[in-house]
C-alpha cells in the first residue's frame, strides 16, 4: 500500500490512442515497387485493403510499377498504421510518413 508521501499519479485524461493527432489526417501511406509482385496481385490487394473499384486500384498499381511508388491514402496515425499492416500482410512493401 502506498505511503502518504508517495507522489500521486493521476491517470492521463487523454491516452495516446485518443489524442487528436492520432485521429487527424497527417500521415501518408506509400506503397513501393517490388518487381516480383504480379501486377494483378497488387491491384487485387488495393481493392481488398481499401475497398477501391478496380480502375482506381489499377491506377495506383501502375503508378507503383512506373514510378517506383504511389501515395495511396492520407490518414490519421492510427488508420495509416492499420493500412501499412494490412499491406504488409500481403507482402507488399508499404511505409507511412508524416505529411509535411
Amino acid at each position, binding site marked *: 500500500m502506498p505511503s502518504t508521501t508517495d507522489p500521486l499519479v493521476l491517470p492521463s485524461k487523454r491516452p495516446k490512442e485518443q489524442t487528436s493527432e492520432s485521429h487527424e489526417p497527417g500521415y501518408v501511406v506509400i506503397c513501393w515497387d517490388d518487381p516480383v509482385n504480379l501486377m494483378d*496481385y497488387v491491384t*487485387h490487394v488495393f481493392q*481488398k485493403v481499401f475497398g477501391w473499384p478496380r480502375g482506381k486500384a489499377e491506377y495506383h498499381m501502375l503508378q507503383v510499377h512506373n514510378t517506383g511508388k504511389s501515395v495511396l491514402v492520407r490518414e490519421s496515425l492510427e488508420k495509416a498504421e492499420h493500412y501499412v*499492416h494490412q499491406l*504488409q*500482410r*500481403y*507482402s507488399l*512493401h508499404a511505409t507511412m510518413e508524416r505529411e509535411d
Partner: protein
Amino acid sequence: MQLLKRDQTGIVFLLGKRERELMISLLKRYPVMVGAHFRARHPARTPETKKNQEVLEEALAEQQNENRRALEQMLNETGRFSENELGFAFKLSHSEVDWLLQVLNDVRVGSWIQLGEPDTNAKAPPAATEENVQLAWAMEMAGHFQHILLEAVNAPAE
C-alpha cells in the same frame, strides 16, 4: 490447375495429381518472408518510426504463425481435395482464395529476397547453387498458382 466452378460460395479448381503434390510441397515452404526486409529497405529515421516497424514485424511474425497453423489444417482436411477421374477438385471459399494469395505471395517475395532480388538493376544474377534453384522454383511456382487464382477471382460468377 484450372477453374472448374465459381459461384457465391466459393471457387473450385481442378488439380492434376502431380500438380497437387507440387502445390503441397510449395505451401510447406511457408513462411519465407522476413519482416526485417522492409526495415532494411527503409531504415527508421525517428524512434517513433523504429518502434512502429518493430510492432509491424511482431505482427507479421504472429500472422505467419497463425497462417502456418491454418495451412496445416487445410492440407490435412478431409474433402478439401476430392479425387475424381481427372485429378482432384480443390474447393476454396472466397476468403480462403484471398488468404491463399497472401500465403503464396509470402513464398514468392520471400524466395525472391533470398535469391538476392534478381531483376533489379543493381543486383547481379544469383549463382546457380542447389539452394538457389529451389528458391527460383518456389518463386516461379508461387507466381504460377497466384496467376490462376487471380484469373478465377476476376472471372464472372456462374
